[in-house]
């Protein structure tokens, strides 16, 4: 295919847009490891800003990690079963429930935070703990886990699989844990990456819900941009980037749950062979 | 109808290798007469669609290949400059336009003045009998209707060459037969050189002035439908078109001796040979007076005729058809008389 002039114009334009997005990131990384931003590279490279960030803000990093992990656990425990139910009972009610659970995405974080403060701000212990922030994060990230798993469940022919398993004697829980969950693997993975990434970066909700003792990484960032020198803010941003880039890369690789056709076939094979040899070691429903 | 008004198309040494290394087409040279309807026939992957796309201008032939429309070199012209009309397997009707706008699109692109455009579009809609559908959206049309819109759109621009890529494949059997008749009538009425691609031999036989049978990127035979049917050039063509029976035997002194009987042999020579013949060249006779004797393994009542599988003669059961009304039983002894001169011997 011959390259036309239009191609090169579009190419140049796209490069410009990339530059717009990436150059400031690079600048900020550089600033974080330069002795003096105003003098630039000439003043030498150093890690002292990074160490300073660690001194000042290490608890924020730990807290963000903690909240992300707990948030992930919550969304899995709450969201995966919910997605299953919604996929099974497809109908108006199911769609309304999905709407309802997705509402927090349609409302600005600020509003949700305000609502939480007004309603639960009075419970001192709760208000002061990181659980308060956790609640906001779960509300905000659950729809992503839900949608991700729901997408996978809707496309795979899991109903036929379930019927196959049922015909071989598996009860509801055996089917749920033995057939449905393994089949959602890619959806759960994609959802998990999304949840953790979003939780790490959440600010709108968290800023309103935080206290001086429960600061997360983004909250710390805002702090440092406002009150610290540029180099510290940059170094802090650098730390954030280091944490978030692996997540983003993982998202790109695993973020789009593929139709688990191969997994479906695998499972069916397993069931059929297990059933045939009577090797289903799971507890059976009474009186078979 | 072959008419001097159509644009002749010439392919010279056109081969195609795809970037991933697949060799889709071996060097092919072909002359298509102006106004002729030529059908490229073969199984999937034989190169027929690749050839069509090279003629269309959607693919370029490998270096050295040339495409000419009426002595004009079009090899380097992209499709939008070649003035062809193309009907795709999925019809590719534009969903954001209604029927009328679809048919008019090519004329709009050519900046045809609106009066002329309207009259030409009206003409096309009448010709394809879809005038009552002109304001419909594409998703409201049935398969057969879409096909007609696709044809109308392709012909509206008065293309030099009309290209059809398996246009009937997406339709069910009954519709396909009906539309085949319509397309046949349409193509005979037009003077446009037509290239038609299909894997259905019945379509090829009924629509083509000439058929190009292809396999694995190569041409195996070019001929009229009759030539292809009665004189297949090799085993592949013989098996692909219609049904063929095979019997092994030894020729000596004007007789072909098989394990199931003797058949008079016209033509000289001697030695081991495998012959082929079509079901319609064999008729059922009394086992004592027949050339070959066998046993019926299965019979299929098809309504207008009965198909019998006869074993004991060839390595694979022979397929014989008869319109006799009686029932044939499994295991029944049966005799076959082979029409003189209908036995074929072929290279692979």
């Amino acid at each position, binding site marked *: 295919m011959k390259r036309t002039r239009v191609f090169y114009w579009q190419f140049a334009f796209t490069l410009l847009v990339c530059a717009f997005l990436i150059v400031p990131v690079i600048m900020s990384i550089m600033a974080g490891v330069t002795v003096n931003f105003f003098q630039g590279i000439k003043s030498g490279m150093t890690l002292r800003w990074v160490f300073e960030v660690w001194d000042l803000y290490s608890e924020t990093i730990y807290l963000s990690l903690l909240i992300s992990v707990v948030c992930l656990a919550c969304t899995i425990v709450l969201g995966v079963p919910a997605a299953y139910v919604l996929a099974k009972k497809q109908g108006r009610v199911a769609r309304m429930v999905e709407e309802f659970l997705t509402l927090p995405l349609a409302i600005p974080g600020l509003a949700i935070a305000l609502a939480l403060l007004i309603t639960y701000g009075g419970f001192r212990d709760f208000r002061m703990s990181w659980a308060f922030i956790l609640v906001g994060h779960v*509300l905000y990230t659950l729809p992503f886990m839900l949608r991700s798993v729901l997408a996978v469940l809707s496309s795979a022919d899991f109903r036929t699989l379930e019927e196959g398993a049922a015909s071989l004697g598996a009860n509801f829980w055996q089917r749920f844990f033995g057939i449905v969950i393994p089949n959602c693997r890619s959806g759960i993975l994609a959802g998990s990456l999304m949840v953790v990434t979003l939780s790490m970066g959440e600010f709108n909700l968290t800023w309103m819900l935080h206290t001086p003792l429960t600061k997360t990484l983004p909250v710390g960032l805002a702090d440092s941009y406002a009150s610290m020198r540029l180099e510290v803010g940059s170094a802090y941003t650098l730390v954030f980037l280091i944490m978030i880039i692996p997540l983003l890369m993982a998202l790109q690789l695993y973020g789009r749950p593929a139709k688990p056709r191969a997994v479906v076939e695998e499972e069916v094979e397993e069931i059929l062979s297990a059933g045939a040899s009577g090797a289903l070691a799971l507890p059976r429903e009474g009186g078979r | 109808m072959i008419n001097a008004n159509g644009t002749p198309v010439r392919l010279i040494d056109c081969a195609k290798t795809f970037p991933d290394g697949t060799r889709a087409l071996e060097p092919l040279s072909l002359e298509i007469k102006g106004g002729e309807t030529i059908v490229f026939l073969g199984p999937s992957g034989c190169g027929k669609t690749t050839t069509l796309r090279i003629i269309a201008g959607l693919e370029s032939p490998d270096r050295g290949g040339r495409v000419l429309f009426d002595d004009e070199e079009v090899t380097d012209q992209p499709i939008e400059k070649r003035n062809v009309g193309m009907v*795709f397997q999925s019809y590719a009707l534009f969903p954001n336009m209604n029927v009328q706008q679809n048919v008019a699109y090519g004329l709009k692109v050519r900046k045809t003045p609106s009066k002329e455009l309207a009259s030409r579009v009206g003409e096309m809609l009448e010709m394809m009998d879809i005038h009552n559908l002109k304001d419909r959206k594409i998703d409201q049309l049935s398969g057969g209707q879409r096909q007609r819109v696709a044809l109308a759109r392709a012909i509206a621009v008065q293309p030099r060459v009309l290209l059809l890529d398996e246009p009937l494949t997406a339709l069910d059997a009954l519709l396909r037969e009906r539309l085949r008749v319509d397309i046949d009538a349409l193509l005979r009425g037009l003077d446009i050189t037509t290239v038609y691609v299909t894997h259905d031999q019945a379509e090829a036989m009924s629509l083509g002035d000439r058929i190009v049978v292809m396999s694995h990127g190569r041409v195996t035979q070019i001929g009229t439908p009759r030539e292809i049917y009665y004189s297949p050039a090799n085993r592949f063509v013989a098996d692909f078109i219609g049904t063929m029976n095979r019997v092994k035997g030894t020729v000596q002194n004007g007789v072909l001796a098989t394990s199931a009987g003797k058949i008079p042999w016209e033509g000289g020579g001697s030695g081991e040979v495998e012959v082929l013949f079509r079901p319609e060249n064999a008729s059922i006779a009394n086992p004592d007076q027949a050339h070959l004797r066998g046993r019926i393994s299965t019979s299929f009542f098809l309504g207008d005729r009965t198909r019998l599988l006869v074993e004991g003669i060839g390595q694979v059961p022979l397929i014989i058809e008869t319109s006799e009304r009686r029932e044939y039983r499994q295991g029944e002894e049966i005799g076959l008389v082979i029409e003189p001169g209908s036995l074929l011997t072929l290279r692979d």
Partner: protein
Amino acid sequence: MERREYPFLAVLVLPVLVVFSAFFLLPMGRLVAVAGTGPEGVGAYIAILTTPRYFESLVATIVLSTLVTLATLAISAISGLFLERNRFAGRGILVSMLTFPLAFPGVVVGFMVIMLAGRQGLIGDITKFLTGDKLVFAYSMAGLFMGYVYFSIPRVILTVMAAAEKLDPALEEAARSLGASQWLVVRDIILPGLKPALIASGAICFATAMGAFGTAFTLATNIDVLPMTIYTEFTLRANIAMAAALSIILGLITWVALNAARSLAGSTVAAAA
């Protein structure tokens, strides 16, 4: 099998419903109620239209969000189509670079804006070099605009690329077979084909811009967008009722925008809202 499963299904879905009711439904209900407890009572909702400060804030936010949406759609359409339809060495890297800022919180984007357009920003240096005058606009609406476009591009471009991938190539070939040039193919076939995706991601872009807080917070000195107004009402002026009313209205606007997106585009909306 259906009926007997109901109790199990209920058990599975109950936890999430309880959590959501307690921590979302209830608080939102209280928010609506609280909005009406201020000095103006329920009239607080009307105040957004009658009070100049709030009204200007609302209009500014809407205008800004609209401009951001249009700019982002244009940029993403051009680059997204370009990247989806061409294959060349380094394409993957460009795609990664463009989608990389997807997870940046608003604050970080604000910082990026400062890097580009702040007092020591790159753009300032470039303009100083070219014209002698340093252009600094990070702390104004222009800076906010740039910030919003910055975080909107990755999302919209992903949607555009996904939608472009799904376009039927036969449609393009058919248009070309009828003589359409590249430009006509884009205008008559591709853009109409992308319309649902563009509308959907445009609406999401609009809603996100309306509700964005972090970026404005980082750049704030005198930027008056609605989320900032809500924030100052709550924290600096302790006007809880007003803040609640304004949030409800903001929430309604974003909710309407997102619903419009969904009904216009069905399931082409990208999960990364």
